[in-house]
């Protein structure tokens, strides 16, 4: 009855729960000798850890679209942004202003209908939000797990709906054209948020409760991987890969390519929305600029570097690309410390001399984003097919 992937999912979720509890409950002395929780003592590393989890969710969900289904989407951050803002609206209780939509006499029927639909949508969202808020209770408090899940879910669903919205019209497009459409969609989302006064517009939205922890982040990541893996490796899900390999042949084999593309878009958007919700409830502050084109490119780079369609590779690349910019921050220190230790060990450095890099070199190394870009170029030149292609691609028998 219990199948291998399901057992792995359950075990990993339990492990993350235990880890999350341990991080928040065990105390260690900090630099001043005071006893604090592990999270407080290693706040910087904890930040990176959660960042890795969120990056894994984003990259492995985008992998379903870009890697497995072969549709080049360049707007994943837009879905993440939608998720972040919708989830925050639920926990903060921000309501959309119910702008009256006057139906002008003499206006064309389609315009009136459009306004009517807009008004009905606003009303529906408003009532849903107020319903959730009465249920969620006062904002600015640590939400109950059920409430947090509800908020994440609203974010995920909003993103999935947007995924459907962008998926359906762009199905006729391929390659570069599709990339441009998704990019445009990403920008639309960003600009709309930028101009939405109730969401803080350009100033950003803050004050969300700190609800995200290792458990939520990595359980969601595990769920994402589980869903993508099972989708792609089942007979049902081979359809995604068939669409990528040869659309005409896929249609001729009875595969509804439209359905598969829309499904891939909506599923990936849903998980991007969850990632956005988690991000918003960790940083406790979001700005529209955080969900722009550059963020989308970051996620695409993770997928390409990990190897399109390789689950393991994409997860490793997501972790690597989150850690790398932070590691490079410490590079000059590491060279000095490591160099000193190594030279002492070899006996080439007398007494208490230490290695000290000239200030000019330190300055140079501090341009970490340039180093980061150079590393990316090097990786792409050395392994254009992706870090781990071949891994995690084995056929699951049974």
């Amino acid at each position: 009855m219990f199948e291998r992937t399901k057992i792995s999912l359950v075990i990993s979720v339990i492990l993350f729960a235990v880890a999350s509890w341990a991080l928040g409950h065990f105390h260690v002395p900090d630099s001043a000798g005071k006893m604090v929780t592990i999270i407080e003592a290693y706040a910087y590393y904890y930040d990176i850890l959660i960042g890795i989890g969120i990056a894994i969710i984003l990259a492995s969900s985008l992998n379903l679209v870009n890697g497995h289904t072969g549709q080049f989407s360049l707007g994943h951050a837009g879905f993440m942004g939608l998720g972040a803002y919708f989830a925050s609206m639920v926990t903060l209780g921000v309501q959309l202003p119910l702008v009256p939509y006057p139906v002008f006499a003499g206006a064309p029927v389609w315009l009136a209908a459009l306004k009517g639909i807009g008004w009905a949508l606003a009303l529906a969202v408003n009532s849903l939000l107020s319903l959730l808020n009465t249920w969620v209770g006062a904002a600015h408090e640590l939400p109950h797990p059920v409430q947090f899940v509800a908020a994440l879910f609203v974010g995920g669903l909003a993103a999935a709906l947007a995924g459907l919205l962008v998926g359906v019209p762009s199905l006729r497009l391929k390659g570069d054209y599709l990339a441009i459409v998704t990019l445009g969609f990403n920008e639309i989302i960003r600009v709309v948020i930028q101009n939405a006064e109730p969401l803080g517009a350009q100033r950003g939205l803050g004050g969300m409760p700190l609800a995200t922890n290792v458990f939520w982040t990595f359980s969601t990541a595990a769920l994402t991987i589980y869903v993508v893996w099972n989708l792609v490796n089942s007979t049902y899900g081979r359809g995604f890969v068939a669409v990528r390999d040869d659309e005409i042949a896929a249609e001729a084999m009875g595969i509804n390519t439209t359905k598969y593309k829309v499904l891939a878009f909506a599923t990936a958007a849903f998980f991007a929305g969850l990632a956005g919700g988690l991000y918003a409830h960790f940083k406790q502050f979001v700005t529209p600029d955080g969900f722009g084109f550059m963020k989308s490119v970051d996620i695409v780079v993770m997928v390409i570097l990990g190897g399109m369609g390789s689950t393991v590779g994409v997860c490793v690349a997501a972790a690597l690309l989150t850690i790398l910019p932070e590691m490079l921050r410490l590079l000059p220190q590491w060279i000095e410390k490591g160099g000193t230790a190594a030279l002492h060990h070899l006996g080439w450095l007398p007494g208490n001399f230490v290695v000290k890099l000239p200030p000019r070199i330190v300055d140079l190394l501090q341009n970490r984003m340039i180093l980061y870009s150079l590393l990316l170029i090097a990786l792409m030149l050395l392994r254009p097919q992706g870090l781990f292609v071949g891994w995690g691609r084995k056929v699951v028998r049974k």
Partner: protein
Amino acid sequence: MKPLLLLDNVTVQFGGLKAVSDVTFHLCERELFGLIGPNGAGKTTIFNAITGVYQPAEGRITFDGQSVTGRRPYAITARGIARTFQNIRLFGSMSVFDNVRCACNMHLSHGISHALWRGKGVVTEEREIEGQVMELLGIFGLAAERDWPCRNLPYGDQRRLEIVRALATRPKLLLLDEPAAGMNPTEKVELMKLIRFVQEKFGLAVLLVEHDMKVVMGICERIAVLDYGQKIGEGTPMEIQRNPKVIAAYLGQEAEHA
């Protein structure tokens, strides 16, 4: 015999060009039917019209008593028409086994939720599919290569795999688009045996587009000849060989060039 596929005055147009005009023919159940004609006569266009890749500008295509005109390719395949391609179109990144498994997709009783939950029913069904696929691969002598990437197969085997994949959709009619293209004489003889075997074993009707006259004349029960998008003849291989229009279309041309 009951007609299985019926093309009724089908016209396919690309802008101002009529690639196929007013073509009418029918196929009976379990019949081996050949479609021949010089280059650019519109054979593959007719194929693409039948399978829904192109929409006919005029005319009707009826399959098994129902109109399939203007339907999407996957819906037509679901009705029971499967095809192979002139230039091999296997799913390049997949194994031999997965290529065939893909074609079982539309017969699945479970949808996305089941694929995600992977309960007992799904696991049993996946096993059944594996059994069916392996049986098919076994019949065509590809069982040993099940986990090979399909690109690594020799050319002839790739062609065969395409036929296996088409058969996995459980069709009533199999369309073969120039299956002998690029084959040597020995492979062609093998292919003729294979097509006859498939037709008998699975009780299919087969529509064959082919350049190679030996293959077409050797196995087809009836043949239609196209030239410049129009049907210029139809009948048994013997009748076709004596048809003056057909001789003009083929030999007349050659005589001019010679």
